[in-house]
């Protein structure tokens, strides 16, 4: 029986971005175990992040025929990642303009 997940109060930007980026790179749905390796957090924390991101429509789960659960980035997740990347890019260029 899966234990009840405690909701994330303040998700770490780095972990969310890491998950978004890893899924963004994959053209196909990605195995949860592989994504957990990429997230560099333990499985419990990873599940809380996945749950948090699923609740917000950033990722969606997909059950495969082989019985493994896979994760996929939603268009909203893609947009969120693009926005984060563009944000930091704008700030860097604004800071270093003419440098």
């Amino acid at each position, binding site marked *: 029986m899966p234990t009840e997940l405690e909701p994330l109060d303040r998700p770490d930007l780095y972990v969310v971005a890491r998950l978004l980026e890893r899924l963004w*790179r994959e053209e196909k749905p990605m195995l949860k175990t592989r994504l957990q*390796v990429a997230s560099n957090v333990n499985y419990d924390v990873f599940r809380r992040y996945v749950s948090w991101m699923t609740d917000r429509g950033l990722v969606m789960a997909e059950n495969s025929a082989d019985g493994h659960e896979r994760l996929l980035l939603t268009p909203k997740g*893609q947009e969120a990642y693009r926005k984060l*990347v563009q*944000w*930091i890019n704008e*700030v*860097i260029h604004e800071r270093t303009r003419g*440098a």
Partner: protein
Amino acid sequence: MIGSRASSGVRDGASVLGWPERSNRTLIVLAVVAILVGTVALSMTMFSVPHRAETITVEPRSYHSLYLGAYGFCRLEYSHTGASYFAEGYIVELDRKNFELLADGKPYDYTGYEAIGMGGQGTMTTHGALWELFIVVVNEGSSPFSIEFEYDMTVYVSYLPAGPIALAVFACAYAVDRWMVSRGSREIPPALGTVPLTTKRRMIQVIVVLVLMPVALVYAFEILTPGSLSLWMSGFITLPLSLLISIVIALFLRFKLLLVQGSPEDVLADLAHRLRVSRYLVAPRRSYLSVQISSTAAIKLRAKRVPDGTLVSFQMDATPTGWVLIFIGIFLFVFFMPLAWAVVLFTLYRAAAFAQVRVIPRMSQMPIPSFQQREADAKAVLIDSLAEGRRLASEAYDSVKSNYEDSFIISVLAAMLVFAVLAVVSWFASSQFLEGPERIVVTIVVGAVGSVYLLVFQLIRLVMTTKPVLAEIKAWRGRLEGALFRETTVVGLADSGPSSFEVVLDSYRELPKWLKARSKGGAFRQPGLWFLMFFISYGIYGLALYGVFQLGTGNLPVGGLFFGVAMVLVYVVFALYLRWKRQQDEESKTVSDEWSGRYETLRSEMEAYLRGV
């Protein structure tokens, strides 16, 4: 390791080694060694005049001339004996122009004069630069006289054989390079597309003109210079001056590359993006892009609106290391101007090769996505951020390294100065109780101990403060290069490891340090100011030395005046330096203050955004 993969990575699907715009460094080193060895060997054997002795008889109202051409650096010694007591003559040393004036019976100027007669004899020895010399024995008397004349000239390095040897060696090196390419032992990767070789060919024609120009200018100076000035305008002045003119022209030449559609801003933004994808260091400036080709060469790419579209042109540029080589050559005028000239022409060729093989194909690739489309593409934006971070890290690394090397040289010079000061002080201080060899030994030991102590202390301090900074920036550059490599190539991705986003965000925290390090790049951030300080310092040295000499000979008013002017100039240099330092400190403080807390703000803004999704 991502970093190590990047360092052995590929550009445009080809090996990093052996790009067409890159040179075969082994061959260049061998060519330079061959030129140096060949020039010395040929100069010593063909241009030297081993000891000769002859009896010279000069008829009344006539002269006998002896021509010596070294066109470089030599040792010359001549002597004359045996003139009769009543001989009425003299020996003059002339350059070619004044010799022709003498031959025509016109007034002339000389560089050396010695009277013959009264049974006189004399010896003259010269070490150093000598272009052409006419030694003329003139008989002003009414009866002939004879002298025994002996001379010996050893030419160490002559410019005359250096030119043909350089051409021959580079022709051989080029042939060997082509042969290696045809054999397949040196790989030249294919360009992105097939382009006609017009740019490179046109550049070769320009370089031929720039090579021939100094020769023509030397002859023009020779013809146009008045006789009175020709003493000052020997080949040692006219050749470097002609090379300098050729260098200045090469630095300012702009070459048309391609006519394309689109606004100049979009064309440059597209080009910058494409070059960054190929992991070139691209620095966008106000009106052009500066792209680093190698450790010394760079290229400026400009776009200008014309009636039919946008014209893209290029101009040679250099990295700070390249500029150091060029400026050293220019400042050491006589000795190393040919080096600066060769570096400039070589950079010009590399810029043309780069424009031909790397820039034109990238501008012909279709379709070129619009700037707005690229903004919407997360990958393109990531590449842009990583490339910008990598550029800033690389420039910061170069600045810190350059300052480190400058400080190293300054420490050695300071140690030499301390040695001199301590040696002088101990020499005078020991006058009461030491003499002879003991006094010399004590002087040297005191000077050496003081200077070595200072040098070792300074170098340890320098290494301990700079090496960690260099290592840190290098590690960051590696991280950014690794991430950029991952974004620009199709490779199997590891599941673990930091994301590119993390690398960019983390590097953002380092930016103030990098910008600060870059702004301390000194001479090459504000070359005008630093060269002004250099020239004034050089003037101070001359004035102070002359002032001390005059004071030593008891000429107090003149000595005091020169010394006073030198001191005023010391104050000027010091004030300029303090102003520069204050400006740097203010800029650093502004940057640090502005950046302080900025990272945390940005991070919380992003987290707030994610929470609100």
